């Protein structure tokens, strides 16, 4: 454990990004993710990188578009209202098939909302994140270690598939400190023959663009992109299963909600209730497989969320609504307590018998 340091989740993201070779960060401050920018501001100038506080979120995401066009690893970070401002840029990145890492340390909404933790941007993140048909790879860390690991993974996936990876965290994950090991095996970034790096008069021009005035051509790019998405859905889903094998009741939760739920699952198990937990690590692609499997023996699912019930729809879709799914939630910056989740489990247990 000697190689572990205590770090805030936000700082772990920033340091992991630097380790992954990111030398360009553009952002605009907003609670509760400001430590990402602060860390970058301190570190980037010392390592020949670029930290730039843009004049707005919209400017920052378009700077990301620019650097990504040159094939360099680049990122931005924000929190819920700021991500809404970036959504135009997210759509343009998708339309131009550009890789990028975008971090959303969510806070309560809608509107300016509050500054306390939330998971209510689930729909926004998993259904695309802007106008037009597209997806982002959405990664949901549940520890500071994962904040770091999924940042590295996010850059790799973004480069592999030429799309945006989003870290969908929340205020708790950003603000909490835990021991973290930053000993990563960084893979070489893939060749980017599409990057606009100058032709040196030796090749055709590369063009990075999301405008297709021919509907036939635009349809074709959409179809192709969705072939890619299908491949990702089949190959990149990540999840953690906890005591699911014999479970009558299965709790679904990600991020901080999964941490709280694990306490409740342990307590319920000690009372003899057969309950397990499925924690999606990728929210898109959603890990449907473990849910399908669990639906064969579980009699009820409980979706624990810091939202009015967003992931619950994916749980229902994954299980073809074969098993009832109830919601256990808090919103507006509040977090369900382990006792609240335990109560939901006990209630479900009463119904199961």
């Amino acid at each position: 454990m000697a190689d572990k340091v205590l770090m805030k989740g936000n700082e772990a993201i920033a340091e992991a990004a630097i380790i992954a070779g990111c030398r360009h960060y553009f952002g605009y401050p907003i609670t509760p993710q400001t430590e990402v920018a602060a860390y970058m501001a301190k570190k980037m100038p010392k390592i020949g990188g670029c930290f730039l506080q843009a004049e707005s979120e919209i400017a920052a995401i378009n700077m990301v578009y620019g650097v990504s066009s040159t094939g360099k690893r680049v990122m931005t970070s924000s929190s819920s209202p700021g991500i809404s401002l970036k959504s135009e840029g997210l759509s343009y990145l998708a339309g131009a098939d550009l890789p990028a890492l975008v971090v959303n340390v969510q806070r309560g909404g809608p509107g300016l909302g509050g500054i306390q933790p939330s998971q209510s941007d689930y729909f926004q993140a998993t259904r695309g994140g802007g106008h037009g048909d597209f997806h982002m790879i959405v990664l949901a860390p549940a520890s500071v270690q994962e904040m770091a690991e999924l940042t590295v993974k996010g850059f790799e996936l973004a480069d592999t598939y030429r799309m945006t990876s989003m870290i969908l965290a929340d205020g708790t994950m950003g603000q909490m400190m835990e021991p973290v090991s930053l000993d990563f095996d960084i893979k070489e970034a893939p060749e980017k023959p599409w990057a606009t790096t100058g032709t040196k008069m030796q090749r055709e021009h590369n063009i990075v663009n999301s405008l297709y005035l021919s509907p036939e051509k635009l349809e074709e790019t959409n179809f192709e992109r969705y072939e890619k998405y299908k491949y990702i859905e089949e190959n990149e889903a990540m999840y953690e299963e906890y005591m699911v094998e014999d479970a009558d009741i299965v709790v679904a939760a990600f991020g901080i909600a999964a941490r709280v739920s694990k306490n409740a699952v342990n307590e319920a198990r000690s009372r003899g209730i057969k309950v397990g937990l499925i924690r999606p690590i990728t929210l898109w692609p959603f890990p449907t497989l473990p849910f399908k499997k669990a639906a064969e023996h579980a009699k009820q699912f409980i979706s624990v969320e810091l939202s009015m019930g967003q992931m619950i729809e994916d749980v229902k879709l994954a299980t073809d609504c074969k098993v009832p799914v109830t919601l256990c939630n808090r919103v507006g910056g509040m977090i369900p307590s382990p006792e609240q989740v335990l109560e939901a489990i006990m209630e479900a247990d009463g119904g199961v018998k």
Partner: protein
Amino acid sequence: MSTKQFLFSGFGGQGILFSGKLLAYKGLIDEKQVSWLPSYGPEMRGGTASCSVIISDDPVGSPIVSKPDVLVAMNLPSLDKYEDAVVPGGIIFADSTLIERKVKRDDVTVYYVPATKLANDNGTPTLANIILMGKILNVLGDFDETSVRAALGKVISARHADMLEVNLKAMQIGADYE
């Protein structure tokens, strides 16, 4: 298996988050699983600041401490707010310079330490939190100078490295207070 949940609370500026960080680092050095979660937001400017610290032999589940085993209250509003949350059989450490009332509950162990006064008398008025930490570690049987020194080394920035010995002395004052 053993898990201890701590809640540190006081005014912004009393070093509440620093105390929590020190304890978390000590846990890390002692090869425990740890988590540290601050309250963040407007309440930090002048109002109540608090942080949750969990030290455990097992992976930490929820990092949010709502029922602390140990409450460290450095002002009256903190004691008012969290006294009832402490688990039965838990421990409360109170800075009795700033908290004039006694703890109402009789199912918890309470240590009253005039930490702010001790800090002023020692000529280190900003180290009341560290004095209290000395008492906490002493009571918990966890005052091991090697790991305390190492933890201080982690949380005191290089710029203030000269403060390490001063902090250690403050901690000893707390540990020795009866």
